[in-house]
């Protein structure tokens, strides 16, 4: 046979095989169906609100069974969700660590615990206005913080400052439910007895004398049964073993003082994980700049103070800018700085992103007038 004949033969064979197949639209595989259930936004309803302390509440969120997302996504202890609200016609978001057991997500329930922040737009709104029965849209759980069976050690020391306790409640439940096989000691540093969040749950867990233990230190109050003052080497010493994994969640001051202590125990860098919790930045002089936002089909000019992030300025102006972690880590808000200078605090930018003028608006404070390309 020559080439033309062979090509004709191959084409005919192919044609015959194709013609014998079904004419129906191809079906989804199991994986395709499961992936379709994953959404970037889940519609939930607040089904319970529990007052933990005078300025902390735990919100139980259940999947809205009548919505397009009747089931919630699974999560790993340590992950967060981002809640979406519309306050005074501004779209705003905030990320909160999930404080409930990962197994509750199988029943389509998430819990988040919110502490009132002085002048905090979202925390005050949540604590003062939201009631049982209200709808709330939340993101898919995200974040890298947590325990890994593969790389982490069996002895886990968690350091929590204030509301930084929330991811460790989830981790504690995960360990008690044998999702993870490890020992956890949570050092919980809190101002006073009345500020302790999850007081009852912690008491019950400590009573079980299992592989999870909470050690509470009160920094501004002396009380029987509790340690007093900031965490010290001596407080940790009895719980440090040959190999340890340290998880920290709280304000940056806590990380700084703890790192000094951890160095004394010779705990290697790879065994210490931090949750980025706050973006702290205070400009020397308060100024206001122009912010020009170039979107797909329109351009908006707004103002941005130098003590607020570009993301906050856009939200205030009603621009629905995307956001997820709000601490510079996840890259969901990435945008291109077309002109101007920003101060970026702790953005986890890839080298190539930095070279191509990408910034994370959620942690970018203006240092001049700004022109931003935002793909929405």
């Amino acid at each position, binding site marked *: *046979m*020559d*080439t*033309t004949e*062979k*090509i004709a033969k*191959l*084409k005919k*064979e*192919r*044609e015959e*095989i*194709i*013609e*014998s*197949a*079904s*004419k*129906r*639209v*191809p*079906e*989804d*595989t*199991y*994986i*395709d169906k*499961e*992936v379709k259930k*994953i959404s970037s936004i889940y519609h939930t309803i607040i089904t319970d609100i529990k007052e933990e302390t005078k300025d902390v509440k735990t919100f139980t969120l259940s999947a809205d069974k009548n919505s397009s997302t009747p089931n919630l*996504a*699974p999560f*790993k202890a340590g992950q967060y969700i981002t809640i979406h609200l519309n306050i005074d016609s501004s779209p705003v978001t905030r990320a909160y660590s999930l404080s409930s057991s*990962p197994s509750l*997500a*199988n029943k389509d329930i998430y819990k988040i615990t919110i502490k009132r922040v002085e002048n905090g737009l979202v925390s005050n709104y949540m604590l003062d206005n939201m009631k049982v029965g209200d709808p709330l849209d939340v993101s898919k759980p995200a974040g*890298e913080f947590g325990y*890994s*069976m*593969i*790389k982490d050690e069996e002895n886990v020391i968690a350091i929590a400052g204030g509301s930084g306790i929330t991811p460790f409640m989830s981790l504690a439940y995960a360990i008690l439910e044998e*999702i993870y096989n490890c020992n956890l000691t949570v050092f919980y540093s809190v101002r006073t007895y009345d500020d302790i969040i999850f007081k009852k749950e912690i008491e019950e867990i400590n009573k079980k004398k299992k592989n999870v233990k909470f050690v509470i230190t009160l920094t501004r109050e002396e009380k029987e049964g509790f340690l007093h003052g900031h965490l010290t080497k001596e407080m940790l010493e009895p719980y440090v073993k040959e190999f340890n994994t340290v998880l920290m969640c709280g304000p940056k001051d806590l990380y700084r003082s703890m790192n000094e202590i951890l160095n004394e125990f010779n705990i290697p*860098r*790879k065994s210490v994980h931090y949750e980025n919790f706050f973006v702290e930045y205070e400009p020397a002089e308060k100024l206001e700049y122009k912010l020009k936002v170039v979107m*797909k*089909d329109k351009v908006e000019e707004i103002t941005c103070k130098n003590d607020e992030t570009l993301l906050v300025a856009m939200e205030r102006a009603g621009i629905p800018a*995307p956001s997820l972690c709000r601490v510079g880590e996840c*890259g*969901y808000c*990435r945008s291109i700085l077309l002109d101007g200078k920003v101060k970026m605090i702790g953005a*986890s*930018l*890839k*080298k*190539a*992103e930095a*070279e*191509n003028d990408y910034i994370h608006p959620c942690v970018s404070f203006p240092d001049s007038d700004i022109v931003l390309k935002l*793909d*929405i």
Partner: protein
Amino acid sequence: MKYDYIIVGAGIGGLSAGLNLAFNDKKVLILEKNSLPGGFVTTFKRGRFEFDASLYDLLDYGNEEHIGSMQRLFKKYNLEIETLPIPYNVKIKSIDDKFEEVLKGEIDDWVLRLEELYSGSMSTFRSLLPVLKEVHEALVVLKKGRNVEKDFPNFTKYLDKNAYEALVDLNIPDATIHVLGYLWIEIGSPLNKLSFIDFAECLYKYIFKRPVALKNKNIDFSLKLAKRFEELGGKIHYRAKVKEISLENNPKVTLEDGTTYEAKEIICNLSERYVLKNLLKESYPLANQKENARTISMNGLVVYLGLNKPYQDLKLYNYRYYEFQNLNSAVNLKSMKKFSHHTIEGIVPNIVNEYASPKNTTILVLKTLYSSNCWNTVNKTNYYETKEALANELIEEFENAFHVDIKEYIEEIEIATPFTMARYTNSVNGCMFGPMRLGYDNSIHRLISYEDEQIPHLSFVGASSIFGSGVDNAFYSGYYITEKLLEKERKEN
């Protein structure tokens, strides 16, 4: 707003199509659902490590001496990238065959090693080389739409032969055939169902246009392509997820937010199956039949590890590691139907690129593949547990197979499952290589039947399209398909 061309997806195929069209002064819009370009060719950051998702060996780019077709196109578009040579340095192990060898050094060195193992390898391998060249040259002629008569007797001879048959015919010792076929085990096409033409073209690129590594990260490569496309006048909208494509009357694309864009032609950097299932408003029975007849390729588990020691300390001296159950691809395929890791691929980018990770650290990427529906037992209640358990097994099996200690040095870890890949790239079933190149559906068959199977005003580019998976093929598909479209345009005018 009306465009000449709308491209759905800024993967490598989509960017390549965009580059060629913009270079030819067409008005082009690329719609990308993610916030960065590249599709599978992307990079993610964990701690102090930047992990490349997929592209480690760039084929068909070549070097200064041996210029591959991709480099030629890059020169035309005035695109510059920095590359590093990849020496032969592969450790291959097969459990059933009790085979363990390192193919290293120059080509003559490792062919000599094969000769020592299996007599007759060297002379027959030498006589294979001109056949590879001839097949490549015949394909160049065929792709230009010209007649392949007479000048290419070997192309004609082996056109309807599978790789195994042809290599036997070329007198290559049986064991050597299976060693040469190791790369295909990875993609899942057994040699007795893979066209010799597809096999020869890939081996030609591998031997004559040595693969190179990117000096910079995957995302740098993708951003360079996207940036050049924009400089040439093209437009990309990110975070633009397409909901519907309609071809009747005026071809148009509708986004999830309701925005509609019209164009004369629509090009999808998505698999045909995904588009037929999820996006296309009208129904095309023949296109459905074509998809239903096909076999979806493998999916798998990829474990990215950031290790806190230099590779020398970890005794990871090879660039790539493979462990197979059986070197015979047809037999090995059967072992990939369950959650076992008897097909392991390991890559240590630091061996070829000192910039792959921070000083005194190493990146190790482990991959295993599954050819059946074993993921069907995984649901939201056991997802994270299963994923971690499988990754853990994979790491331990790699340690055992190659006698190294990895686990205690893991500083960062990320695990990608078929669910991750399906969600990020819309690949059907989370598969990594598009429709499998098998039997009647190898790249050569897709090429010769291309014009007969076209849906009017809709084309496909990328790793799921005509030339199959691999960045070289995805990029070339973007060029080839747009050349066809430009030619059609010229004829119509």
